């Protein structure tokens, strides 16, 4: 699934970033490395860009660029961390890695 396809409020986990190397490097440097949790906070009124919550910081990127970020629902990637409803996962304090 792509980051551009998730619902507002949904929290997912980064699987990988495609696209132009400088862009993917910059995103990774801002903390979007594989395994990182990302929440889609909202979409701008004109439909672009989108606001993401990454490691407690609000980042905005354009939809086209969100479309090169492969994500997965948290339950699917981390069976060990499986929590019943993915929607609530990020809202609970984490119990450690």
């Amino acid at each position, binding site marked *: 699934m792509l980051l551009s396809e998730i619902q507002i409020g949904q929290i997912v986990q980064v699987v990988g970033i495609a696209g132009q190397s400088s862009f993917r490097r*910059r995103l*990774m440097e801002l903390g979007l490395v594989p395994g990182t949790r990302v929440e889609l906070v909202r979409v*701008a009124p*004109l439909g672009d860009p989108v606001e993401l*919550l990454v490691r*407690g910081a*609000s980042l*905005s990127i354009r939809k086209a660029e969100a479309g090169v970020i492969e994500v997965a629902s948290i339950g699917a990637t981390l069976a060990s961390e499986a929590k019943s409803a993915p929607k609530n996962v*990020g809202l609970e304090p984490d119990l450690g890695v």
Partner: protein
Amino acid sequence: MTSTQAETAPEQKNAASRGASKPLVVLVGNPNTGKTTLFNRLTGQNARIGNYPGVTVERRSGSSRLDGNQLVEVVDLPGTYSLSARSAEEQIALWAVLGQGQYQKPDLCVFVADATQLARNLYLAIQLCELGLPLIIALNMIDEAGENPPNTEALSKLLGVPCLAISARRGTGMSALLGAMERALGAGPAPELRIPYSAELVRDARQLSQALPPSLRGDAGREQALSLWALTSIEEDDELGEIDPGLRRATLALRAHSQRDLDQEVIAPRYAFIDEHLPELYRRHERHPRKRQLSERADRILLHPVWGFALFVLVMLVVFQSLFSWSDPAISLIEDAFAALRGALEARLPAGIFREFLTQGLISGLGNVLVFLPQILLLFFFIGLLEDSGYMARVAYLMDRIMKSLGLHGRAFVPMLSGFACAVPAILATRTMERQRDRLLTMLVIPLMTCSARLPVYTLIIGALFPPSRVFGLVPVQGLMMVGMYLFATLMTLVTAGILGRTAVKGRRVPLILELPPYRLPSLSGTLKMMWERAWSFLREAGTVILACTVALWVLLSFPRADVHEAPSTAPAAAVVQKHAPNAPLTAEPAPPSPIAQSYGGRLGHAIEPVLKPLGFDWKIGVGLIGAFAAREVFVATLGLVYGIDETGDDATPLRSRLRAETRADGKPAYTPLMGLSLLIFFAISCQCMSTLATVKRETHSYRWPAFMFAYMTVLAYLMSFSVFQVGRLLGF
């Protein structure tokens, strides 16, 4: 004090080896971490603003006194999320902390981190720690960290460098910071941090470090860090400067041959390190920290599709209204003061060349410079508040969809909007954009927006040459023309931005990555300081050029002196008029030439008449265009002088009737609505403003871009007016 450093790195030019000069402290950190607030706290009133060599990035420096009374030089580096770089401006951070190239090697780096966003900030901290620099960490905004602040001792232990909690805005922790800076200056570089990279990557880095130039050599830890920097920065098409060709070749070869994802191999272990150790730094650790509640609540309204936009329009209206009309009383005050000064001098000094130089050249020039101050101060007052509060990033967020279609960044919106008032403050406002290419492109199209100086010209031309009738008995023609000019100019701006962005200012299209910082109460003192800095640098750098141009234009339009006693036929200027008269039926009029007609400017007007004729302009309009270079509205006064009408006043009624009455040799009106349209279009596009050019020169630090701007706008204006006039004539207007 810094002798230990001098011993470990004898080739580097730090304070110890420079002798008695002040030790250098650089502030480095992410954007929006309060670096500049800390800088202002440290340096107080004695900050200087300059430019980094070769790039249009501002360099702030100032001196500060540490606890033990030691004086240090403090430099505020541009905010960055990472040391890796793709452009010369992003490269500043690394070059400055290492003391490469023209940069002086710092004796201490102070890493300013946002205590509320530690995870992201730590990435850059790790890069600095890997280099083994003399470093301390200031955890800023500790007052906002709430009941679960990061533990400075744990962080200090983790990274091996001193770490303190401060609030630059409130001034807490400052004396502890000064003391820590003093101790760190004596302590020398910190031990290098080792991040567990993959064995393959370590091998690659070791191989690449063989290609490092001597200036980047050091111990194994630093060489590995710099090799990793090269791997994540140097590319076929990067825009870095001063990269050793051998290092570039080796890096590109390594990247080309590697089948692995090198970027991820470098970046992911650093975040793995952060994720592993972050729980140690907090009493309570959250895996997915939420957005700050207050900011999120505010954003629910401020970024709302309906309310958000309504508030946005309201805020922008206030900014625009202030530039457009609230600045008016101050502008009038300045103009009146200079008029009074001129009047007083004219009354006291004997008539003559010196008096004229003083009043019409020098004092007018000073007035031309100072008249921009109210708008500059007001615009930067709003920009300061908007930036500080965090709303400016939201403006970019809301407007990006529109600006994107022009090949521009969302942040270009406020400068572009300001362009409707005046291009000069608008061009200064492009500083709020991070990338040089975005700034340049925005700067180049801003003068196409209909600034307020065009209004008197439009009013004159429309009032004089277009009928006061109504279309279909409803819409007034003149009002329609005015609205039409605004729409036309906006359309031209958009089209030109699209074209220039793909041609002259190509550069890479960089994907938008916009941070929406938490909302904060803006600091008035910081804003006032910035207003003062902007205004002062404008006066100093652009002001001198504007002053010189005003004097030059005065010379052009006043010399040679018209001698009233001399017969016109023998005067050289009159000879020019005579020579041109037979070829130019538009000028065949019996009145004796006015002094301005005989000036160099007047002759130039005649000389360029053949060029202007296809646009429908005669030499008088030509002289007006030359005069308008001082500022567009001067067109009205210059044309008044050409016609010998002294009092042009605000409504310019005598000039209007004079223009309407002007006839050609065959008795038909010289100025037709078609010619008026051609002139309107010329004014809409051409770069009739030396102050704009002077400001672009100041912002780009080159003559190339103002020259390009003047050339493209003049050629475009000529072609558009030419087409309109010629097509109109073919159609029988």
